[in-house]
């Protein structure tokens, strides 16, 4: 491993810039993708042309301070929680050896398939006052038994932490698996204790992966609407929805959203700055480093800890979903489910491939061009992840409808023919919208792996006569394999879970499992929603298991 200053990059990138067939091609591509994201964002910014001062004043007088505090609490709480869980679990399964490690290694990823809103309603169903746990406790110990209030900041942070830690876990594990014991040994040889070595060498070396994961988590937490509204926990996002659906002021909702985007832009910029001066690369590529052998009680503590997290984040909620599904199966299940399933899978598959390909190219562009503009464009291209889905959906829909109307008018006025809407309600538009929304998930996965590919490797390949696409295919792609599979999985699972964009852009009849869950839960039919939720969960498991088989080779 080496960690060197960035000073050589400028020179070396200039050094081999003549290798690329069209030097500006990468930048053009980045520009196009950034524009795609920029358009819906600027629709939001345009809302400031008519500032809704009276709504702002009202919010400022009543809710704003609480909203900000709640949002801050949520983001800080969830990122701290996911960091603790994600890093500890990644270290245990990635670099240590204890009973059951191999199984936990993949099983701990399973919660990734569980949508946050599903985990939220299941957890409340089990642990709230009227749920079976508290009811049983009251039956045993009397009415006044104390139980922590689930519908509180603590409750919502806990649930979101359990649902989102896999992002940190997945990315960080990639780092630990290949560093493993060697990094620790190096630290110990320099006089560090194991604990000191972990904090002073292992963690800092895994920083790009950890930062990538936790940035995704923060963006998810900021944009989440489903889970917080189930807990009736007021955040910036609930205020956005309330302003839109209650005050019917889309401009004010867009103005609130634009602040959210600004926050995230700062967050992403901060992350990039933090690691700007570093290069994270390996001196040699070892697929599997030695593991730290845990001994004595530690072994079993590790096993117990992993089991506990797995149980509350995945096993228990899945069992509850399964039980509810059984209850409603005969009234709920019919042949339409095959259609829902097919649509979900098809959309997720196409979108995952597109997102991964675009993310790969973006990351490559960022590598080729270290200028500010390119990096700002890349940053912009990943912002869609942080917007509440519905708000982004509107931002996409407004220009889309405008374009369609324009084409219809043109066709009518110029050629005298009447054409229907060409773009709206097509799968192509859905895929574009998903790409705008989930670019960050694909990009962070791939970009953190990209840091492994050193300029030395490029130089060496060049000497061997590999350049351009060949360089990408023969040298880089194999090294990025893990990142690519991670990107595919995250994108697939995210698209499967996605609700608002699917609702707003789907063609007639293209309902998905997530749409079905929306239909049922919006009328409070949580138990009936268990069947589509469970199906969604099972589908999400497939790529995750494939990913594990792939990366554990």
């Amino acid at each position, binding site marked *: 491993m080496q960690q060197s200053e960035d000073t050589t990059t400028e020179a070396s990138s200039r050094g081999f810039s003549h290798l690329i067939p069209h030097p500006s091609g990468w930048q053009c591509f980045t520009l196009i993708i950034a524009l795609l994201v920029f358009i819906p964002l600027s629709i939001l910014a345009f809302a400031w042309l008519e500032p809704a001062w009276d709504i702002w004043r009202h919010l400022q007088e009543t809710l704003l301070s609480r909203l900000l505090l709640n949002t801050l609490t949520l983001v800080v709480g969830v990122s701290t929680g996911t960091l603790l869980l994600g890093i500890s679990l990644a270290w245990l399964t990635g670099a240590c050896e204890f009973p059951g490690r191999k199984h936990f290694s993949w099983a701990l990823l399973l919660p990734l398939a569980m949508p946050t809103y599903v985990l939220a309603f299941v957890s409340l169903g089990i642990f709230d006052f*009227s749920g079976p746990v508290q009811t049983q406790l009251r039956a045993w110990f009397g009415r006044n038994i104390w139980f922590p209030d689930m519908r509180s900041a603590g409750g919502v942070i806990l649930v979101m932490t359990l649902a989102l830690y896999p992002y940190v876990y997945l990315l960080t594990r990639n780092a630990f698996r290949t560093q493993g014991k060697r990094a620790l040994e190096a630290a110990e040889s320099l006089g560090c204790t194991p604990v000191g070595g972990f904090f002073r060498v292992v963690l800092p070396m895994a920083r790009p992966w950890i930062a990538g994961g936790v940035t995704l988590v923060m963006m998810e937490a900021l944009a989440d609407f489903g889970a917080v509204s189930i807990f009736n926990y007021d955040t910036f996002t609930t205020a956005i929805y309330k302003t839109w659906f209650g005050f019917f002021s*889309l401009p004010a909702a867009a103005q609130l959203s634009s602040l959210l985007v600004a926050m995230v832009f700062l967050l992403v910029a901060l992350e990039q700055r933090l690691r700007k001066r570093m290069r994270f690369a390996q001196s040699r590529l070892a697929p599997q480093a030695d593991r730290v052998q845990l001994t004595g009680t530690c072994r079993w503590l590790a096993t117990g800890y992993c089991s506990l997290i797995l149980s509350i984040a995945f096993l228990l909620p899945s069992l509850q979903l399964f039980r509810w599904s059984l209850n409603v199966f005969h009234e709920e299940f019919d042949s339409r489910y095959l259609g829902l399933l097919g649509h979900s899978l098809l959309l997720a598959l196409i979108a995952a491939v597109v997102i991964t390909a675009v993310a790969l190219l973006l990351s490559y562009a960022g590598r080729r061009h270290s200028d500010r503009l390119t990096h700002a464009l890349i940053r912009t291209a990943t912002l869609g992840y942080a917007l509440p889905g519905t708000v982004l959906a*509107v931002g996409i829909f407004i220009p889309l409808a405008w374009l369609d*109307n324009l084409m219809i008018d043109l066709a009518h006025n110029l050629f005298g023919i009447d054409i229907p809407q060409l773009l709206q309600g097509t*799968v*192509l538009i859905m895929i574009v919208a998903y790409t705008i929304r989930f670019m960050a998930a694909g990009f962070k996965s791939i970009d953190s792996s990209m840091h492994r590919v050193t300029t030395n490797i490029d130089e060496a390949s060049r000497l061997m006569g590999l350049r351009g696409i060949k360089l990408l295919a023969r040298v880089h792609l194999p090294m990025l394999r893990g990142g690519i599979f991670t990107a595919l999985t995250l994108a697939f699972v995210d698209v499967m879970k996605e609700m608002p964009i699917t609702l*707003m852009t789907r063609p007639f009849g293209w309902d998905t499992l997530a749409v079905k869950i929306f239909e049922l839960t919006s*009328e409070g039919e949580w138990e009936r929603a268990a069947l589509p939720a469970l199906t969604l969960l099972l589908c999400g498991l497939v790529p995750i298991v494939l990913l594990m088989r792939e990366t554990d080779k």
Partner: protein
Amino acid sequence: MKKHHLFAALVLTLLSLGATNTFAKELVIYSARNEQLIKPLFDAYTKETGTEISFITDKAGPLLQRLKSEGKNTRADLLITVDAGNLWHAAREGVLQPVESIILQANILVHLRDPGNQWFGLSLRARTIVYSTERVKPADLSTYEELGAPQWKDRLLLRTSKKVYNQSLVAMLIAEHGEDGAEQVIRSWVANLAAKPFSNDTKMMQAILAGQGDVGIVNTYYFGRLLKKNPELKLALFWPNQKSTGVHVNISGAGVTRYAKHTEAAIKFLEWLSSEKAQNLFADGNMEYPVNQSVATHPDVAAWGDFKASKQNLAIAGQLQNSAIRLMDRADYR
């Protein structure tokens, strides 16, 4: 290059996916009423008349925005939503058109449709008091306003103020008492809360069953669904304000879009929805009350008892929604 052909083919396929089945339909509907509640009616209509219906469901807000953005090129002929406030806003945003229909005017009670004939109520639900039959005597209950009295201290449970049903209820209170009077009522409710407001009515009723509180306010059909699952339910409905304004009612309803391509078909369908057969389907599907007075209420629903319903025109729910939300924010009703 071959690659480009492949790419073009892919784009064309994706463009055409889904686009093909949207032509030649005879009626296109945007619905904020959920698929499981509305599709049986579509199916019945298609079976009876042969009219093919295609539809999209979403929340009311996005559907309204969709209609606005699509403008005159929209495919939608009919907008179906729940809550009068949503319909009122749709009319105000100019996405609906007035419909002159003798059948609709005869079938639907006057306070359940738009005075300007842009939207029509299709099913009726009451938002009323629910109480624990174990811990509350119905004689102790009287009005919505009385839920703020000291005897309900730490016994009242409510759903979140973010739900439009509560916004409409408070809008009606404002219409009766003025803003200051209504705010006092809401403040007294908030002071009596036994737990933080719930995200939905069903959860709130389950909390009453578990003993977290004793009384609450629900839409009747949520109570009906719970009762269907458990006939021994230890909850009952109480009809408040019988000596004054009557129980707050709300509707699900529909309006023909301003740029409908099949206006005639849309009106026909609306008229059919207000007919006896469709009204029965509405009630059966979701345990609601008919808006057509000549249609008998479903026996299961009628069993909850007769009540005097508020006769205020539901357009008020839309007009005062903004004030209602601000008022609830001021009163710290979350």
